[in-house]
C-alpha cells in the first residue's frame, strides 16, 4: 500500500493558477468588456499647465447627436485622494487647472468619432497663471501658490534628528558628501488605464470594473464622489496588466467613468491612451538627494546627514508618505545610530507622481550606496568588506525603531560575491569594463494602513461545500504578481491538499472580503498569514467532524490531506467523507482567517510621521552588475547581473525569481534610460518610443540566488519578493561604470551623452594635470 502523505506545495515552483487564461488570450482585462449598447468615454484635458478656469462651455458638444452625457467639474464637488489628510483633487478640475492634461470634462457618446467630435466642440476659457515645472521654481520667493492651503508650494516638510549627528560627524575619520539627481520616471505597465461603469438607474446602483490595485479604495472614492451609499456600489477587479504602484490609489479614470455613466444613465467604457496613461502618471517623483556620510578608518558608519527634495506635481497623492519613506528607510540596511533628515515635498505644475515600486526608497538608497562605494574606494577597502563592517544583527530594532527579526543580507552578499567571481573581477576586467555591487531592503507590507479602521489587516474566507471543493475568497488584488497563487498555496499546504481542490474568487466587493490592496508588498505577508489562519480554522472543523465519525478525540485525528484517520493502522476517512460529516447539521461551511500586525512593528514615535516605514519584516537584496562601456559612444551595456534576495522563505520559488528579475530590470530602466520629460508642462515622452523602456536587446541575463532567513512572523517564514531588488540595481550600475571608466556618474539616467561629458571632463583634467 502506498504511504499516504499530505501534499506539499510550499517551496515548490508553481506556475500561476491563472496562467492558462493569460497564455490563451481568455483572460479579460478591463478594456476587454465590450457589452452591447456600451457608450464610449473620452476625456477633455487642459491645454495649459496652470490657469484659472473662466468658463467651460459644453453646450455645443451636448447638442451633438449621439452624445449621451457630458460631465465637468460642476458635476462633482467632492475631492478624492488616498490620504485622508490630503484630499484636494477633484475628478475634473473645478477652479483651476494645475497641470497640463488635467481632466476638465468627460463625454459619453455612442461611438469614438462622436465622442471625439464632442471634445472638439468644448470651449475652454481660462486665465493663464505662472507655472512651475521644477521644485526650485515652485519654491522661489515670488512664486504664487498652487493651493491656498499649501503656502510656498510645500506639500510637506519632514525633519528628524536621531542621535547626535554633528558630534558623530566630528568623530568620523572621513566625511563625504554628494548631491544626486534622480529624474521622474513612470511605471509604463503594459495595460493602459481602463474602466467600465454600468449604472442601473432603476435601482440607483453602480457596478465598476477598473484596472486598479486597490478596488477597496476605489469603492470608497466612488461612494464619496458620486455621493452614493457605499452599499449601492460594486467594484470588480478583472485581470490587470501590471501596476507597479500607479494604481495604488483611486484614479480619476474610474471616477469619471462612473460619473459620466450615471449622467448618461447607461454603461460607459473609458479606455485611455498610452499618452493619457503617462499624464495620469503616479510614477516616481523627481528626487534630489543630498547625502553626507561619516565613517571611521575601519569603515564603520558614524552618521548620516541627508536631504531630499521631491517634485510632487499638482496634487498631494501619496506625497506625504513618499517623503516620509525616503527618510525612515535610510535605516534598516546597515547599523548606525545617528541620522538627520530633512525632506521637502514640493507642489509643481506637472502630473502628480505616486507610489512606484520601491516607494520612497529608491533615490535615497541609490545615493547611499553610491556614496559608500566612493568611501570604500578612498579607504582602499573592498566595497563588500565595507558593507560587512556595518551589518546589523537580528533580532534588533534600528535607531528609528524598525523591527528586524530576520536579516539575510550577509548571505546575499556572500552569494553574489561568489557567483559573480567578484574577487577575481574587481579592478581586473580591463579598460571600459567594470563591476559594481550594492545592497537594499524593502518592507513586507506597511504595518499601519492609511485608512485605519480597527479591522484586521487582512481577512480570508474559505467556503467548503458538499462537492468537497474549497472556494478561496480573497479581496487581495491579483495584478500579475502571483498573489492568488501564493494564497492558494498557503491554504493547500496547511490542509495537505493538492492546489486543484482550491478555486479562488478574487476582488469582487459584493462577494470577497475587503482587502486593502496590492501595495507596499503586503499581500504575501499579511494575506498569506490570514490564509494560514483560515486554513487552520477549517482544518479544525474537519478534524472535529472526523473525530465524531471515527469515535476518537480530535487531538488523536491525523490529517493526511486526502485522508483523515484515528491511528496509523486505521483505514480512515477520505476527504470527501470528512467534508460530508462536517456539513451534517451545519450545511455549507464558511470559515475565515485574519491577520493583524503587532504594535512593535508600528515604527517610531521619535518624530511626526514615524509610523511610515514600520513593517513586520524587511527583505534584503544584494547585487553585482557587470558592464561594458563603449569607448566611442559611452553607451553602457549591462553584461550580466547576479542578484540574491532574502525572501524569508520562497513560498513559490518560480514567482520569487520572476519578481526579482522584474524588479532588477525595472531598476535598470531607471538607471540607464528612463525619464519623463516635459516642455513647459507638456509631456514630450508620452509614448513607449520616447520613454525608453529597455527592450529585449539591451536586457541582460539576470541570475537569481534565493536566500531564506525564515522570518519568525512571516507566513512559513516568508517576506516580500517583488520590490527589494529594484533600488540596489541603480548604484550597482553606477559603481560598475566607475570601475570601468574611472569617473562616477552621479545624475540619472546614465545616458551616453551624460557619461561622455564626464569622461571628456576627466580626460581634459588629466591632460591639464600633465601639462
Amino acid at each position: 500500500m502506498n504511504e499516504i502523505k499530505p501534499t506539499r506545495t510550499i517551496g515548490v515552483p508553481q506556475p500561476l493558477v491563472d496562467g492558462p487564461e493569460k497564455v490563451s488570450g481568455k483572460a479579460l482585462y478591463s478594456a476587454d468588456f465590450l457589452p452591447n449598447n456600451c457608450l464610449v468615454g473620452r476625456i477633455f484635458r487642459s491645454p495649459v499647465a496652470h490657469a484659472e478656469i473662466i468658463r467651460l462651455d459644453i453646450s455645443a458638444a451636448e447638442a451633438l447627436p449621439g452624445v449621451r452625457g457630458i460631465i465637468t467639474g460642476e458635476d462633482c464637488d467632492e475631492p478624492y485622494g488616498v490620504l485622508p489628510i490630503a484630499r484636494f483633487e477633484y475628478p475634473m478640475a473645478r477652479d483651476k487647472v494645475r497641470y497640463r492634461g488635467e481632466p476638465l470634462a468627460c463625454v459619453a457618446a455612442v461611438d469614438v468619432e462622436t465622442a471625439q467630435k464632442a471634445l472638439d466642440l468644448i470651449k475652454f476659457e481660462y486665465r493663464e497663471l505662472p507655472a512651475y515645472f521644477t521644485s526650485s521654481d515652485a519654491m522661489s520667493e515670488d512664486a504664487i501658490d498652487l493651493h491656498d492651503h499649501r503656502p510656498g508650494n510645500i506639500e510637506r516638510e519632514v525633519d528628524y534628528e536621531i542621535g547626535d549627528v554633528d558630534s558623530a560627524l566630528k568623530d568620523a575619520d572621513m566625511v563625504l558628501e554628494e548631491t544626486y539627481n534622480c529624474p521622474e520616471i513612470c511605471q509604463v505597465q503594459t495595460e493602459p488605464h481602463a474602466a467600465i461603469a454600468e449604472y442601473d438607474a432603476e435601482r440607483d446602483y453602480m457596478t465598476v470594473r477598473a484596472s486598479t490595485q486597490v478596488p477597496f479604495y476605489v469603492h470608497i472614492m466612488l461612494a464619496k464622489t458620486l455621493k452614493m451609499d457605499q452599499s449601492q456600489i460594486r467594484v470588480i477587479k478583472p485581470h490587470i496588466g501590471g501596476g507597479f504602484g500607479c494604481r495604488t490609489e483611486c484614479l480619476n479614470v474610474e471616477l469619471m467613468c462612473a460619473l459620466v455613466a450615471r449622467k448618461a444613465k447607461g454603461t460607459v467604457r473609458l479606455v485611455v491612451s498610452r499618452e493619457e496613461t503617462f499624464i495620469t502618471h503616479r510614477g516616481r517623483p523627481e528626487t534630489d538627494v543630498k547625502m553626507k556620510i561619516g565613517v571611521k578608518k575601519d569603515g564603520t558608519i558614524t552618521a548620516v546627514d541627508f536631504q531630499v527634495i521631491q517634485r510632487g506635481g499638482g496634487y498631494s497623492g501619496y506625497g506625504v508618505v513618499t517623503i516620509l519613506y525616503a527618510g525612515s528607510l535610510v535605516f534598516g540596511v546597515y547599523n548606525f545610530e545617528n541620522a538627520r533628515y530633512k525632506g521637502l515635498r514640493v507642489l509643481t505644475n506637472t502630473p502628480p507622481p505616486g507610489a512606484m515600486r520601491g516607494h520612497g526608497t529608491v533615490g535615497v538608497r541609490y545615493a547611499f550606496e553610491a556614496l559608500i562605494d566612493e568611501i570604500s574606494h578612498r579607504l582602499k577597502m573592498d566595497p563588500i568588506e565595507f558593507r560587512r563592517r556595518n551589518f546589523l544583527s537580528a533580532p534588533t530594532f534600528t535607531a528609528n525603531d524598525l523591527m528586524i527579526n530576520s536579516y539575510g543580507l550577509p548571505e546575499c552578499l556572500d552569494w553574489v560575491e561568489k557567483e559573480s567571481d567578484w574577487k577575481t573581477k574587481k579592478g581586473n576586467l580591463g579598460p571600459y569594463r567594470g563591476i559594481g555591487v550594492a545592497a537594499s531592503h524593502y518592507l513586507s507590507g506597511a504595518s499601519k494602513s492609511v485608512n485605519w479602521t480597527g479591522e484586521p489587516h487582512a481577512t480570508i474566507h474559505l467556503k467548503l461545500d458538499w462537492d468537497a471543493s474549497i472556494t478561496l475568497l480573497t479581496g487581495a488584488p491579483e495584478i500579475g504578481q502571483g498573489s492568488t497563487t501564493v494564497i492558494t498555496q498557503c491554504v493547500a499546504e496547511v490542509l495537505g491538499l493538492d492546489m486543484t481542490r482550491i478555486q479562488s474568487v478574487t476582488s469582487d466587493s459584493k462577494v470577497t472580503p475587503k482587502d486593502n490592496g496590492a501595495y507596499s508588498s503586503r499581500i504575501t505577508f499579511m494575506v498569506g498569514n490570514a490564509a494560514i489562519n483560515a486554513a487552520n480554522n477549517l482544518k479544525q472543523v474537519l478534524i472535529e467532524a472526523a473525530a465524531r465519525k471515527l469515535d476518537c478525540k480530535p487531538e488523536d485525528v491525523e490529517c493526511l490531506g486526502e485522508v483523515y484517520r484515528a491511528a496509523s493502522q486505521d483505514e480512515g476517512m477520505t476527504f470527501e467523507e470528512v467534508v460530508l460529516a462536517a456539513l451534517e447539521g451545519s450545511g455549507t461551511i464558511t470559515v475565515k482567517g485574519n491577520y493583524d500586525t503587532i504594535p512593535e512593528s508600528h515604527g517610531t514615535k521619535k518624530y511626526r510621521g514615524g509610523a511610515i516605514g514600520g513593517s513586520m519584516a524587511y527583505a534584503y537584496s544584494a547585487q553585482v552588475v557587470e558592464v561594458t562601456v563603449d569607448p566611442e559612444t559611452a553607451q553602457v551595456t549591462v553584461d550580466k547581473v547576479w542578484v540574491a534576495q532574502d525572501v524569508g522563505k520562497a513560498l513559490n520559488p518560480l514567482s520569487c525569481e520572476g519578481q526579482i528579475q522584474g524588479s532588477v530590470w525595472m531598476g535598470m530602466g531607471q538607471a540607464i534610460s528612463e525619464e519623463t520629460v516635459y516642455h513647459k508642462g507638456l509631456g514630450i515622452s508620452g509614448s513607449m518610443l520616447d520613454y525608453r523602456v529597455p527592450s529585449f536587446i539591451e536586457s541582460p541575463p539576470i541570475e537569481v540566488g534565493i536566500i531564506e532567513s525564515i522570518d519568525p512572523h512571516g507566513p512559513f517564514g516568508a517576506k516580500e519578493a517583488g520590490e527589494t531588488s529594484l533600488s540596489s540595481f541603480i548604484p550597482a550600475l553606477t559603481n560598475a561604470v566607475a570601475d570601468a571608466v574611472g569617473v562616477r556618474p552621479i545624475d540619472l539616467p546614465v545616458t551616453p551623452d551624460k557619461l561622455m561629458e564626464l569622461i571628456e571632463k576627466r580626460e581634459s583634467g588629466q591632460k591639464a594635470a600633465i601639462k
Partner: protein
Amino acid sequence: MSKKNHKTLLHCTVNGREHDDVVDDNTLLVDYLRESLGLTGTKIGCDGGECGCCTVLVDGQPRHACLTLAATCTDKDIVTIEALEVQGRLSALQRGFHEKLGAQCGFCTPGMIMAAEGLLRENPDPSEEDIRQGLAANICRCTGYVKIIESVQYAAAELKRTGKEVAA
C-alpha cells in the same frame, strides 16, 4: 449618426474561419478583431506601433494589428492567440509561457506569443540571440524578459522532442 466613411467589403480568414464583413476604410485590424469579432485576446498597449501587444500573424508573418488597416487584409489569413490551442490544450509555446512564468500580468503575452510563433515557424531552433532579435518589437514590463526567453526555448525543445510543427 450618419457615417460618411468609405467602406470596403473585407473577405479574410481569421483563425481558420472565413469572414465577409463591411468595414470602414479607416478601421484598424486590431479594432476589427476585438470589437467586430470579439477576439479580445489581442491587446492594445499603446497609441500605435510602440509595444507589440497587438501582434498577430498575417499570412504567417507577425504584424502589429494596430498599424494594419483591416481593409488591407482582403484575402489574407489572420491568426490570433485564440487559435493556438490544440484541441483545447495549450500549445507548446503557451505551455512554455505558463510553466516557465513567461507571463506575469499576461498583458504583453498574447502579442509576445504570436511574435514567438512567427519566429519558431521560420526558425524552429533559435539561439538566444535569435529570440532576442525576433521579439525585439515586443515590450514586457513585468519579467525583465529572462523567463520569456526560457519559455520560448522550452517550446522549441518541446517541438523538437515531439517532432511537431509550431502550427500543428
